[in-house]
């Protein structure tokens, strides 16, 4: 029974979902007016992502192997390093935004500097233990998230006001466009798929489209709940999904704010661990390089905290988008074409 260091399509799907939901958790609302354009924006972005995923899915279904190596053979290391750099920034951004959430909602619990160090250290440990562990742990964290979500929905004290779900009007176009592009730029699951597809034990299409379906269902449901329960209160509380939890109350657990944070922190460690694993993948020893990339991510996060580097600003949006287009669509697309032209090495 040899060990293979591979993960299943289901595990990759959940890992991609957890990294995406992490982004939703630490998303800070700005000028929420109606959920309908946001829901439509998400739907359209998901549809476009389904098309954008075709090159990566096609490559792993037909050919397999590392698309960077397919394109550049022995000089592929430079392309791989680009992936590492991209995900080091994404990891830094995730840590920075999560730390911002911690310091705004739990300022008395932990100082941001300690939070950054501990998060990066824990994520480095997770990354160094390999993709198998991350994939397996992802399944557990997904069920943990699902259980918390269902439980909070059951004990939520908020009433549903369906009139909050307004029909679309011409004035919603701007909001729709903003959320649509925001969603597209957050599609770094495509470069993730390009790197982790190599560790996949078949079923790239299942992983990609399963992820899209799951993401669409869960985030649309969250948006719907936020709209019909919280309405414009979102504008003043900052984190919509967090506020949804804050409205839950039971006799046993009085409030769910901190419980939410607990699950999110576990998810954050896992998501950042996955990014760091991708960063360290081109190198032979993940045990050495995971901590190095964790330190780089921590520097980004510190820069956000101490020097005002903004990870939800326009430059970061552009950076994320370029990464998605180049590393998530162009690279597998070019690898596909090259493999076809050169006769293709069948799996």
């Amino acid at each position, binding site marked *: 029974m040899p060990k293979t260091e591979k993960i299943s399509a289901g595990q990759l799907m959940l890992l991609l979902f957890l990294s995406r939901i992490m982004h939703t958790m630490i998303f800070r609302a700005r000028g929420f007016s109606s959920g309908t354009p946001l829901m439509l924006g998400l739907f359209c972005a998901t549809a476009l992502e389904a098309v954008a995923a075709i090159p990566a899915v096609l490559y792993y279904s037909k050919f397999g192997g590392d698309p960077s190596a397919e394109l550049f053979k022995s000089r592929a290391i430079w392309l791989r390093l680009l992936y590492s750099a991209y995900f080091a920034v994404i990891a830094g951004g995730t840590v920075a935004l999560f730390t911002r959430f911690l310091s705004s909602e739990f300022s008395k619990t*932990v100082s941001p500097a300690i939070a950054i160090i501990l998060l990066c250290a824990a994520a480095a440990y*997770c990354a160094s233990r390999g993709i198998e562990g991350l994939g*397996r742990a992802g399944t557990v964290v997904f069920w943990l998230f699902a259980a918390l979500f269902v439980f909070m929905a059951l004990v939520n004290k908020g009433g549903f006001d369906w009139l909050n779900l307004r029909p679309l009007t011409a004035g919603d176009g701007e909001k729709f466009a903003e959320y649509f592009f925001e969603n597209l730029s957050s599609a770094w699951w495509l470069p993730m798929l390009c790197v982790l597809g190599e560790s996949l034990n078949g079923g790239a299409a299942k992983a990609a489209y399963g992820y899209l379906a799951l993401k669409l269902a869960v985030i649309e449901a969250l948006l719907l709940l936020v709209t019909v329960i919280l309405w414009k209160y979102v504008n003043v509380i900052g984190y919509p999904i967090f506020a949804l939890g804050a409205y839950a109350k039971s006799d046993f657990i009085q409030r769910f704010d901190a*419980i939410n944070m607990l699950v*999110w922190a*576990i998810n954050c460690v896992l998501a950042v661990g996955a990014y760091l694993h991708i960063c360290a993948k081109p190198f032979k020893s993940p045990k050495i390089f995971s901590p190095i990339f964790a330190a780089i991510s921590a520097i980004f996060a510190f820069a956000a905290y101490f020097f005002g580097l903004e990870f939800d600003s326009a430059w970061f949006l552009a950076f994320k988008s370029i990464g998605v287009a180049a590393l998530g669509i162009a690279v597998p697309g070019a690898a596909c074409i090259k493999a076809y032209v050169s006769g293709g090495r069948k799996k």
Partner: protein
Amino acid sequence: MAYEGRPLGISLEGAIAAIKAEFGGSSDLNVVRTEVSGVKCAILTLEGMVKTSDLAKSLFEPLMGFKAKNAAPADVFKFLSEYGLFSTESAVINLVSEAAERLCSGFAVVIIRGFPRGMAFGAQGFASRAVSEPDSEPNVKGTREALSDNIRTSMALIRRRIKSPKLRFELLKAGKLSNTELCMVYIDGKTPNALREQTKKAIESIKSDLILTSGNIIPYLGKNGGSFFSGVSTTERPDVLCAKINGGRIAVLIDGVPFAAICPALFIENFRTVDDSADKPYYAAYQRWIRFFAFFVSSMLPGFYVAAAVHHPEVLSRSLLLNLLASEERTPYPLIAEMIIVIVMFEILREAGIRLPRSIGGAVSIVGGLVIGDAAVTSGLISAPLLIIIGITATSAFVIPSLNPQMTVLRILNVLLGGAIGFFGIALLSAVTLINACVTDSFAVPYTAPLTPFTPSEAKNIFIKTSALSRRDFKTVEQLNGAGGESGGEDA
């Protein structure tokens, strides 16, 4: 080892001297000199390693009864090796070292003057305990027999439960000095060949001088660098051992140790008991859920309590929060220090309870429960809610004794991290522990299977215990998703 490889020789006294020298003049080496049909012989045994009465009946009496005219040493050897039925186990001895090895295993060695070979006959008869009850794994409706210190008795206990030729015992030796007998137990056709081979190699790689407990071989069987959980489990129950080898696992019995090591071990097995099969499925499922709950309570409740009280009081219900505040008003230490004091106190009491002779073990509970517990609260040293939390935690810990080391360490770490940085600290510890458990595997079988990687049919049997009648899709460890790498199939 000056005599290693030295032949026995034809000189009786020379051979005896060589064997004596091999044992360094150890006092427990008995030498009986006699004559068989006029040929001088010596019978060597180790004190306490053979059953004297059996030896007298099965070896001495037939030897004395052998009468041959003008018997030559070769005739005596022929009688011993070909015609005599002295024991079920016998072996020809050529070398001094072979003789020493057999003697250590409870054989009687017969040396004949003028003949270069001897014979060894199995006459093991160590003084050992009778088959006793499994004290560390008690149950309600299962067997009352535990594995024995004597490896042969343990083998018999297993054979009695699986009367099939497919049950295999493979005897091996380990321990540079102790030369302890180990026995691999498995069922042919159920245990994968690769697992057998790897276990054998692992046993052969054991470098310890002595094998005195199962702990001496477990690190070699479950090589997992930095793993918090163990990929190898132990049991002293023959019925548990049989059930596990039926699931494709391999057990290793150790001579002189009443516990068998079993690999690969799964996390979920810690929550199964023999009584699960004896109870109604719905009740067994309920009990199993209670055990899962007890695990989390035991490892996390004190940490959660401290973190909630110190950093997230909004989580606690109003009555609990007010009670906590009222009682903490009167205690001199911060809550986290109080919690650590009580946890350490509990661990001391537990350790004392284990180490003390049973006759006075009850005194520990009196001192612990009555004197320390009651007095600490009355004197205002410790708050009453905290003591209740520790009471619940300690009781929960007793539910899953096999995970006690892990629960104890997690408990204290949760208290420290929860007290320092609240639920954030507990989250970090949980994430790291989860990853650690997920990367642990034993012989490429994931420790967390069948939960993750998910094997639906087996997972169903964990959470909703199905009746034995409806279980037709029983899976061995090899068939679990993720064994030897993840499948691209149904699992997640």
